[in-house]
């Protein structure tokens, strides 16, 4: 296959990509990050010339590439130029990248080609001792927010000044407290991170005070920026159901005793005792010297008979109260229903509280 024939498909691909990007730019300017990512893909397809064209588009001043994006674009530009055989343009690309980020590391170049790392190293050596600019990081975090406890996240955007490794740590209490959650990401440009209010075991954290620490360190690890935020978590108020009384009102119960015909046999006994008292009264209290005159006092027997008849009448016509097991069961069922309603309400209220969203108040406390 001739060189023209071999290059023709790549040229066609570039035309297609540029046409697509051009169409896109007609609607909105293509983002430098997209151009850089596409250029990286073209490199994997060994289409370095197409990649160079895309990188040049990303590096145009009107593309507003961030410093980190410019560093990456210039680095890839240098690599592609070296691949295409233009050492001068290659080293120029590295030089421009190093001028923006003197701490730039390119260890991964060795895996592409040993010459790449050598040329990069030469440009780096030409810069002399590296004194990196201080790392800065911008964080966008809502002041107060309501976070659902299921599927919710406390979202924050992190934008380091240049490619950096971002470590987000949540600690209980202040920044010296126990680590609740930690996330790490290597960021070029900006990144949106979030905390789902859960600890490392996946359990929802308790309301209280926490500290979110964000550290962005450059690739050398020598320059880092830090931001601390105090997070106050509290449950949002929920409308719970009033707890029903453990004891149902007295009107909910039925009397457990019923009146049945016929008094207790003790009534008969009581009547007999009083009758005996009537008969025995003269014997007990009467004067012994007059006892002879008492004889069998018929009047006492009349009274005793009257009392005995009263006892018999009371026994036959009287009523007594007895406990009805069925009524007891009904009352017990009423108590059980009340207890169940209370238990269910307690459970429902607990569920409501558990599902209540968390109100997160944030306050910057760090540098």
């Amino acid at each position, binding site marked *: 296959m001739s060189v023209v024939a071999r290059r023709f498909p790549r040229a066609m691909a570039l035309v297609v990509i540029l046409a697509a990007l051009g169409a896109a730019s007609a609607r909105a300017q293509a983002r430098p990050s997209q151009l850089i990512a596409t250029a990286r893909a073209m490199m994997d397809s060994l289409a370095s010339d197409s990649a160079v064209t895309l990188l040049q588009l990303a590096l145009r001043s009107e593309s507003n590439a961030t410093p980190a994006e410019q560093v990456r674009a210039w680095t890839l530009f240098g690599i592609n130029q070296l691949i295409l055989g233009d050492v001068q343009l290659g080293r120029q690309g590295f030089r421009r990248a190093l001028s923006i980020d003197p701490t730039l590391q390119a260890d991964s170049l060795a895996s592409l080609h040993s010459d790449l790392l050598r040329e990069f190293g030469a440009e780096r050596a030409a810069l002399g001792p590296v004194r990196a600019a201080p790392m800065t990081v911008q964080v966008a975090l809502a002041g107060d927010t309501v976070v659902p406890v299921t599927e919710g996240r406390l979202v924050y955007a992190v934008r380091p000044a240049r490619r950096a490794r971002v470590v987000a740590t949540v600690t209980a209490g202040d920044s010296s407290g126990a680590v609740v959650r930690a996330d790490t990401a290597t960021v070029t440009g900006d990144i949106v991170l979030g905390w789902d209010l859960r600890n490392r075991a996946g359990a929802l954290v308790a309301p209280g005070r926490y500290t979110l620490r964000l550290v962005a360190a450059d690739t050398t690890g020598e320059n880092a920026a830090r931001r601390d935020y105090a997070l106050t978590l509290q449950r949002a108020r929920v409308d719970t159901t009033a707890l029903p009384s453990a004891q149902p009102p007295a009107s909910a119960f039925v009397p457990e005793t019923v009146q049945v015909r016929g008094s207790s046999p003790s009534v008969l006994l009581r*009547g007999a005792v009083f009758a005996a008292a009537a008969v025995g009264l003269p014997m007990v209290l*009467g004067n012994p010297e007059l006892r002879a005159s008492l004889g069998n006092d018929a*009047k006492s027997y009349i009274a005793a008979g009257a009392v005995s008849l009263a006892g018999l009448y009371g026994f036959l*016509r*009287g009523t007594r109260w007895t406990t009805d097991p069925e009524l007891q069961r009904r009352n017990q069922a009423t108590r059980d229903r009340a207890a169940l309603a209370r238990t269910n309400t307690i459970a429902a209220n607990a569920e409501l509280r558990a599902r209540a969203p968390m109100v997160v108040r944030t306050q910057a406390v760090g540098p």
Partner: protein
Amino acid sequence: MTRLLPLSLLAVGLAGALPGVAVAQGLRLEGGGLGYAVQNDVRYLGAIHEQTGILVGAEGQIRFGPVGLGGRGMMGTLKGSGDLSNPDRTVRFTTVWAAVHVGSWLAVGAEMEARRYESPVGVTVLQLLGGRARLAQQLGLDGLAASVDVTYFASAKATGMAAPTLALRAEVGTTFSPGNGPLTLRVGYRIERFDFPAGAAGTPAAGSPRLEQARGLVVGAGVRLGRR
């Protein structure tokens, strides 16, 4: 007569108003008439004399919460043999008492009684003061109960004769209010005992105490108003 009329009207008015007051204030009023078919035995100078008669009277009490106040009056004639050793005697008993209901079955209190005996021989008056206890048990129906009343007179004064060394009264009976209504019926057996000291030396009664004992049926009917 002109003085009695206003007092009588006042008494009638009070009597008419009392039931209403009782219901409104949670009082309980009881009152009624009673008869006492009594046999009185007297042992004196070695002989036993018997007197019989029927005493009639009225009894009433008012109860407010656990506290009850009551009174009773009875009068009648005890017929003896007619001679001087056992003359007929006209008697009049007046009794007042106050009691506290310790429980639904027990009431204790104090009682004061004046007993006046009048016979051709003379007039004798006894003034008695003592304690009383009443034990009552319901007999299976509201308004049907049996009871025992015991009164022991610890203090006694006498006019016209020596004061008794022992004076007591006891009664066992039953009360019934048909349908637990206001009407109350009662029947009981009562015994009363009075032991008098022997006469002084040199008198006919020396060494021979006078012993009196009365017993008989008590029946009554009345009404009760207010709180049951």
